[in-house]
């Protein structure tokens, strides 16, 4: 039995919009917790995809981050998932920037951009839940040596 993700995607979308629309002072006032929240929201977004595929989301970490472990898990056997590889890494990067120096003059901007990156991840995963093939443009995606391909090529040749 796989537990349902902690938050519906619509709620996450609303929360991200609220963060993006927040004033600079509000963002700066709770910068470290907001940075962690963005990362946690990213994890829940990926949990949605894995749960929908009947896979229990991992609790492991890769390079110190569960988000990256969840991405790796999602990409196993589905290379189109790599279309969000850098989006996940950017989310981690923005979280780290804020956590490293919460008093930095760019903190509000960094949090807002982090929220926009998380929003992209949400749109991508939301899109994949509708049409699983989204992301296949990068392609790659389709396993290059799948069985039916061999058969088709043999027929054509």
């Amino acid at each position, binding site marked *: 039995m796989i537990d349902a993700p902690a938050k519906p995607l619509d709620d996450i979308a609303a929360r991200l919009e609220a963060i993006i629309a927040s004033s600079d002072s509000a963002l700066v006032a709770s910068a470290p917790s907001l940075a962690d929240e963005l990362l946690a929201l990213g994890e829940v977004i990926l949990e949605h995809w894995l749960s929908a595929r009947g896979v229990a989301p991992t609790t492991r970490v890769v390079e110190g981050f569960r988000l990256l472990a969840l991405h790796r898990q999602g990409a196993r056997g589905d290379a189109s998932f790599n279309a969000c590889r850098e989006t996940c890494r950017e989310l981690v990067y923005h979280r780290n920037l804020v956590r490293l120096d919460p008093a930095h003059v760019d903190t509000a901007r960094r949090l807002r951009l982090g929220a926009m*990156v998380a929003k992209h991840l949400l749109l991508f995963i939301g899109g994949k839940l509708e049409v699983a093939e989204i992301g296949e443009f990068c392609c790659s995606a389709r396993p*290059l040596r799948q069985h039916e391909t061999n058969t088709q090529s043999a027929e054509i040749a």
Partner: protein
Amino acid sequence: MSGKYQKVAYYPGCALEGTGHAYNRSTKELGKALGLDIVELKNWNCCGAMEVKNVDPKLQTYLSARNLSIAEKMGFDTVMAPCNGCYHNLKKAEYDLANDPSSREVTDRLSRKAGHETYEAGKVETIHALDWIKQAIGEEGLKARVKNSLNGLKVANYYGCMYTRPRHIFPEKDKGPGSESTSKPHFMDDLLAAAGAENVEYPLKTACCGGAHTLSDSDTSTKLVLNLLTTAEACGADVIATECPTCHTGLEMHQVRAEKVFGRKTSVKILYFTQLLGMALGLSARKVGVHENFSESSAFLRAKGLG
């Protein structure tokens, strides 16, 4: 200037003869202005694009291999493809032919049937238009030729998804200083900075635009593109620079659609990097095909003293 890429075979691909015509025009004009030669492949064919690849990747490998064999027959060891899709597919064919015996077998068979030489991996190097300018001219060479600096222009560089993925088909990338990065590509940033532009830190430079489903799931594509556009604006960009006709068209079309369907207007301009570099070298906006873009940026460019 590196002699290696001074004269290369040119594979424009289908998109550059259609919706990406401005990219074709500006690539040719840029090469001319820089004193570089490109020779179009004779009787080239589709690279296999997404359509063939999704149905039969080995047939796509053959189609791309045929283009590589034409380049070899014409006496070239380098072929330049400005379209990310074509570039990616030629690279994938190269990888498959080097690593997958069954891909080699299918390509051999189809080549014999079509009556031409089989392409053997390692004979022709595929490069992108970014590699071409970066390696043949370089930042210093470009700086020396700038007549109309892009100074004051804030640019978000969008590389799209196919320029760096999957990593294993780009063995020359991620080799440290001087090489391109698959996680944070920078060649376009480097070239535009050399021409005077101010690159903004853009966290979605390789993020998905939903391109493959622009017709089957338009709303998702529009939302993804709208987020690319609004994020570029939040980063302070006046312009999104592109290096792929599919990305470029997708950004332009969904910018319009976002306003029509979701009532979200964005004003960031979308221009090919070849158009921006061409104008920096003193070419007119018309010469680099700005009038052929779907979105209107002429007034903006005039206000910036370009074109």
